[in-house]
């Protein structure tokens, strides 16, 4: 990574969601090597690279699923793995993640979308929420609003199992937006979707970014990265080889491998 890009990343580390010099691996194999990256609220960062290059691992570290073998994961400058479990839960609740698979619960769309809100309530309020018409007003409104953003306002009472793949993925996005996180992590969210569902999700991501969310989207679709991202990081073999504004990365990348990947010549 160039000195200028590292400096830009370091400046962001104090006010965004960031990883700093993280390395991580599984079963003795290094997946990520000394990666530093940050995203601020109100911007979309696309992480592109060939399949198997460590994009999902990076997002799971940002979502505080796993503790990195080395380096730090930070939120607003706070090293998350030095916090207590309770403080880390609080940090986790400011971050939402949508996976490549929708992973919906086997209940209704409404229950899926309201899940994040329900787990944030005290147990007393959760019990009250089970009673019809009591204490569920805010939840209903948030569910309705989130489903509207993904164009599924009428689907609240459907069983999740009855949705198409595209609709399920849109519900997966809606249930993350429902609890209004500060950061949204998207792991190849449209890789199995048709163009219409892809467009709906990209539009929803754009809307939420405009509302102030920090978005990180991992994708191997460069056209998608070009459409949605303010900044782009190119990952190859567990390392970030290029990081900068989208126009710069796509038009004048510094690293020759980044150029090869963008031109479709880097074959894995």
């Amino acid at each position, binding site marked *: 990574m160039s000195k200028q890009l590292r400096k830009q990343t370091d400046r962001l580390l104090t006010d965004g969601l960031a990883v700093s010099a993280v390395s991580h691996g599984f079963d003795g194999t290094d997946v990520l090597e000394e990666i530093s990256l940050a995203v601020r609220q109100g911007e979309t960062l696309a992480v592109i690279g060939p399949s198997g290059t460590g994009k999902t691992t990076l997002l799971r570290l940002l979502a505080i699923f796993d503790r990195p073998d080395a380096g730090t994961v930070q939120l607003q400058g706070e090293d998350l793995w030095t916090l207590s479990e309770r403080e880390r839960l609080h940090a986790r609740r400011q971050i939402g993640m949508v996976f490549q*698979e929708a*992973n919906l*619960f086997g209940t209704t769309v409404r229950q899926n979308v309201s899940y994040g809100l329900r787990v944030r309530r005290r147990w007393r309020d959760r019990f009250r929420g089970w009673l019809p018409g009591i204490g569920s007003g805010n939840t209903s409104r948030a569910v309705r609003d989130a489903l509207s953003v993904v164009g599924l306002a009428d689907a609240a009472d459907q069983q999740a199992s009855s949705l198409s793949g595209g609709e399920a993925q849109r519900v997966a996005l809606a249930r993350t937006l429902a609890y209004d996180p500060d950061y949204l992590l998207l792991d190849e969210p449209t890789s199995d979707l048709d163009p219409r569902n892809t467009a709906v999700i990209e539009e929803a991501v754009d809307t939420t970014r405009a509302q102030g969310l920090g978005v990180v989207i991992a994708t191997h679709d460069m056209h998608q990265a070009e459409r949605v991202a303010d900044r782009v990081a190119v990952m190859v073999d567990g390392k970030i080889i290029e990081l900068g504004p989208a126009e710069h990365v796509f038009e004048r990348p510094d690293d020759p491998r980044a150029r090869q990947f963008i031109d479709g010549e880097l074959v894995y």
Partner: protein
Amino acid sequence: MIGTVPAIERASGPVIAAVIGPLFVEFPFERAYVLDTISVSLYVSLLAVFFSTLFSLPVAMAVGFSEFPGKQFLVAVINTGMGFPSVVVGLLVLFAVSNQGPLGGLDLVFTKEAMVMSQFVLATPVITGVSIAAVTSVEEGVRDAAYAMGGTRLDIALATIKEARYGIVTGVLAGLGRAISEVGSVLIVGGNIEGSTRTLTTAIQLETRQGRFELALVLGAILVALVLLINGVVLRLGGGRI
């Protein structure tokens, strides 16, 4: 009883009489005796399955979601426990509650509580084993989703149990089936005392030995009807998906 069935047969034909005839049987025994036996069976089995479920679910969650040395062995032991001979369980529980046993001070020999203990031991491997299979079949992505949305460990466990609910209920029903149809261990630890520890199964065993086959058959029909009723209620509550 002998006069009732021919009367139905005359009125509705032999096929219908064969089906509904047993409903009009004039029971050759005290009504209180049957009600007592049914209530003891239900009390002992439902209580044992209730405690067994409370014990089995956390164990299933812990075993299903963690990796530790000897896990495969533990699962194998649990699965083996599903077929554990009930008379041996009865014998062990009898030793435990007898005067010289570790629970001797509680004076539990030939009590319903001792029967609950033995049925607990018999039902637990069934409920635990099936529940482990059910919770491990829940896709990891579902747990990841619960975590990503800010769930605590308890929230994630509850979400997993909810996803595995049909499998878990199947396990509980299988455990109830094992408990309520049990003869050997409850006979040993309960003593088959009329009005106190006599269950439907031990009553059937006794009546058969004494040559009262009609009564044994009626008690058997009641036992089957009870199991069907409980399964039906659970099926209904589960929305027909079990």
